[in-house]
């Protein structure tokens, strides 16, 4: 899939290199979603996050979502970069970028990819607080 770039990495994600990869003379609109680690959740101060992934399946599920985006919208390139390991407040766990001739497809595919990623890709996030830690969404 030369028009798809899926990366799961313990290294810092780099927005400019994602933008460079996604831009092309054929595209008219690019939508980029950047997740960032917030300093608080439900009013509680977050110290850092820890991301764990079931790596081969996470990559295959991310590639599946990209293929679904190509099936549903006239998009040109799709990029998904996701971090693993420990992230401090302000760091970037995820970057999604989509280019298309027209912006509607870029916006809709980008939204679809992040929404679906959060539902199906086997990656888990633990929030670390001053007084404890919790696996997000694990319990009702």
């Amino acid at each position: 899939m030369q028009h798809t770039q899926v990366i799961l990495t313990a290294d810092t994600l780099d927005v400019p290199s994602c933008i460079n990869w996604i831009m092309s003379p054929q595209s008219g609109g690019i939508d980029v979603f950047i997740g960032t680690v917030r300093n608080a959740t439900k009013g509680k101060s977050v110290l850092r996050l820890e991301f764990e992934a079931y790596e081969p399946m996470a990559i295959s599920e991310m590639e599946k979502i990209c293929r679904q985006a190509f099936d549903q919208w006239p998009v040109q390139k799709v990029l998904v970069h996701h971090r693993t390991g420990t992230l401090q407040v302000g760091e970037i766990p995820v970057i999604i970028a989509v280019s298309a001739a027209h912006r509607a497809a870029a916006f809709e595919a980008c939204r679809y990819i992040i929404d679906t990623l959060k539902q199906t890709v086997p990656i888990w996030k633990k929030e670390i607080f001053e007084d404890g830690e919790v696996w997000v969404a694990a319990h009702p």
Partner: protein
Amino acid sequence: MKINVLAFGVAKEIFGSSLVSLELTNDATIYNLKYLLEQQYPRLKQLASYMVAVNNEYALPGDTIHERDEIAIIPPVSGG
């Protein structure tokens, strides 16, 4: 047959390990596996939900498990 089950996130903490081994009958299904795991690790039932993956794909309760399948317990995901 003996199968290995990978665990991630909160499931790893419930199992106390990232890998547990189980003895299953040859025609065992995902449903049978979940029942056995929940007997052994009752805290699994307190999760919001959990899925089982076989060879990197989500499996259905009726799917049969084969020897050497890579089995993983997938608690509620929270990436992004």
